[in-house]
């Protein structure tokens, strides 16, 4: 039932901003139409290990039979962005056709799109679709440096003054989220993609305006946390072993490698099926999931092993194994 990987060819690679490369991928069985907000999975090999990475697809439709992804080289990368930046035209790899976890509701009376940095990628297709339909839409696109922000010209040509671009590191412009939310139609929706700080900010602002939570749509930004990514040790008490989690491995993967039997499903911090109980440890947990609510994250009695991690140090957990 799960869709399978198909072979694909890299047609072109080009820089679309500082440290951001757009890669065109032509699947062997042909590119298919996809809903805005879709992502595709790439099967890559990083340090000799097969890994799967998901990237939002840029644009509302394939371009001349190719899917486009735009990938920023992350200094904190676990190898995926480095590997993608190493791709050249003619290379072959495998991908899964796009699917969407971040679908655009086509029937809202107003839209606010909020992007932080490379989080712009899924919103490009949404902006294209909405602009084509003449739907009321505002886009707020925040980054640090303008030169590192791709697709600015394209978005301006689509949305004109309704595309608000701020580069905090340069012009010191501040996002006026409150004004944007206040101006949005009462039944409008906001679509957010960016680092957790941005998502947290939008969520708080949205709630402060008394807007219903279901009208705020977010794409999970799985790799980003509120703290830097650090290696840590985890004491798996029910198995009586201690596992080291390096900087470039997820807790779930490290447990799996160590022979700790786990179940999981989404691998995006959404379903909560890989949660483990936290028994203690003098370290901070960086919750990067969207399964636990704010109170549960504060309590830190559980954590989602697929995306969340300890900020260094040592953490004691229980995976529910009873010999």
């Amino acid at each position, binding site marked *: *039932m*799960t*869709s399978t990987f198909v*072979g694909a060819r890299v047609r072109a690679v080009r820089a679309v901003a500082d440290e951001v490369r757009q890669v065109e991928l032509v699947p062997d069985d042909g590119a298919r139409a996809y809903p805005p907000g879709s*992502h595709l*999975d790439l*099967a890559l*090999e990083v340090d000799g*290990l*097969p*890994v*799967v*990475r*998901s*990237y*939002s697809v840029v644009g509302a439709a394939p371009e001349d039979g190719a899917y486009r992804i735009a*990938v*920023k080289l*992350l200094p904190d990368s*676990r*190898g*995926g*962005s480095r590997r993608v930046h190493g791709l050249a035209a003619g290379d*072959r790899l*495998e991908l899964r056709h796009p699917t969407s*976890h971040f679908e655009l509701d086509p029937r809202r009376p107003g839209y606010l799109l909020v992007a932080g*940095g*490379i*989080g712009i*990628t*899924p919103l490009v297709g949404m902006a294209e679709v909405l602009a084509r339909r003449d739907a009321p839409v505002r886009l707020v696109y925040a980054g640090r440096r303008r030169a590192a922000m791709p697709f600015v010209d394209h978005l301006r040509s689509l949305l004109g003054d309704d595309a608000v671009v701020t580069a905090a590191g340069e012009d010191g412009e501040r996002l006026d989220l409150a004004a944007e939310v206040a101006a949005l139609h009462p039944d409008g929706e906001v679509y957010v*993609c960016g680092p957790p700080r941005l998502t947290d900010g939008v969520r708080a602002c949205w709630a402060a305006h008394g807007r219903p939570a279901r009208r705020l749509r977010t*794409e*999970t*930004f*799985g*790799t980003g946390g509120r703290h830097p990514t650090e290696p840590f040790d985890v004491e798996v008490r029910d198995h009586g072993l201690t596992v080291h989690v390096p900087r*470039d*491995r*997820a807790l*779930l*993967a490290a447990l*799996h490698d160590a022979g700790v*039997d786990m*179940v*999981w*499903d*989404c*691998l*995006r*911090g959404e*379903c*909560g*099926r890989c949660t483990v109980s936290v028994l203690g440890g003098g370290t901070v947990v960086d919750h990067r999931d969207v*399964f636990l609510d704010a109170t549960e994250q504060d309590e830190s009695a559980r954590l989602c092993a*697929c995306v969340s991690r300890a900020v260094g140090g040592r953490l004691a957990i229980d995976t*529910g*194994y*009873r*010999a």
Partner: protein
Amino acid sequence: MTTTSDQPLRAAPDTFARREWPRAAWYAAAYDVEVGAHLLPRTVAGASLVLFRTPSGEARALENACWHRLLPLSEGKLLGDEVMCGYHGLRYDADGRCTFMPSQKTVNPSARVRSYPVVERHRFVWVWTGDPADADPAAIPDLHWNDDPAWAGDGRLIHVECNYKLIVDNLMDLTHETFVHGGSIGHRSVAESPFEVTHGKGTVTVTRWMIDVEAPPFWARQLEWRGAPAGNVDRWQIIHFTPPGTIAIDVGVAPTGTGAPEGDRSQGVNGFVLNTMTPESATSTHYFWAFARKYALTDQRITTLLRDGVSGVFAEDEEVLAAQQRAIDAHPEKDFYNLNIDGGAMWARRMIDLMLAAEDDSYAAAGAQAERDIAEHDRTDAGDGGEREVARARAEAKRARSGS
């Protein structure tokens, strides 16, 4: 942007996609009362069987197809401890050996139908569908409550038009009681109370306690029968899974504050919902159940009332499960999503997958086969295409090894 985690775990284990069942397992083929001096056809784990009892009372299971022209033997006759085919009169002994062929003086010594290991235990006739040499009665799932003198009860067999794993899902999370069984055992506390999922070697346990809640009708009535005071109760559901399809659920209520969560259930009523699911086909299941109670052991009226009451409850499940299977068949492109409540079901399916992986050569040896393919390619094709194929096969082998 990157949206997902970075581990080489490719995707969720495909447990929710797979519709297989392990062969090397004991499956309940019938209730004891169903098997007698007559031929009972039944498909167990995809195998068409004929069940009967010999004059000495032993239950037997033979392949339900005559060696000669494949007519189902169940269409024939049981003559003492021999089965006679209803077409040309070939006879088979209780072990499946042919003992008679018409119009010839001899019997072809190779003529036989497969005989399946059978053990009768806890009121079920269990059949082993794997290699007969591996049939170990110690591996029969524990359902002793069904004929333990310390318990009383009865049950039924229902035929459900769904994959057996859907029933496993259904029983491993009882949240649905609130929504499917609102008139009998359902209560909002079931959907609201926290639960704990633990797993061990070949076992999964889901424990849910509901403290100081209203007793739903099914339980209120039982407290009344037992003469316990009316009022709020502490309610428990402790679900024990044994793969591939057996689930014993320790259920009950006790007047709140009488110590049930601490282990003293003496003031309450305790039952076991016994379930064992035998796949018939990928989309149908023989679902054997019983309800055993630990009070008023000699009151046959209560036994009948409870059996009929549970029958009504399970009819509601039957409808939901068949509708779910039809929806699955209508949407082959769709996957299941898993929620917090599905932890028990996911672990149960994991245990089934482990059984499958242990016996399924094609699955376990996928990696090894890919490695052999690589060696073949290296020898026979030094061309460009060959290299590509080799790289692909190598990547696949690696994935097969690292995947779950």
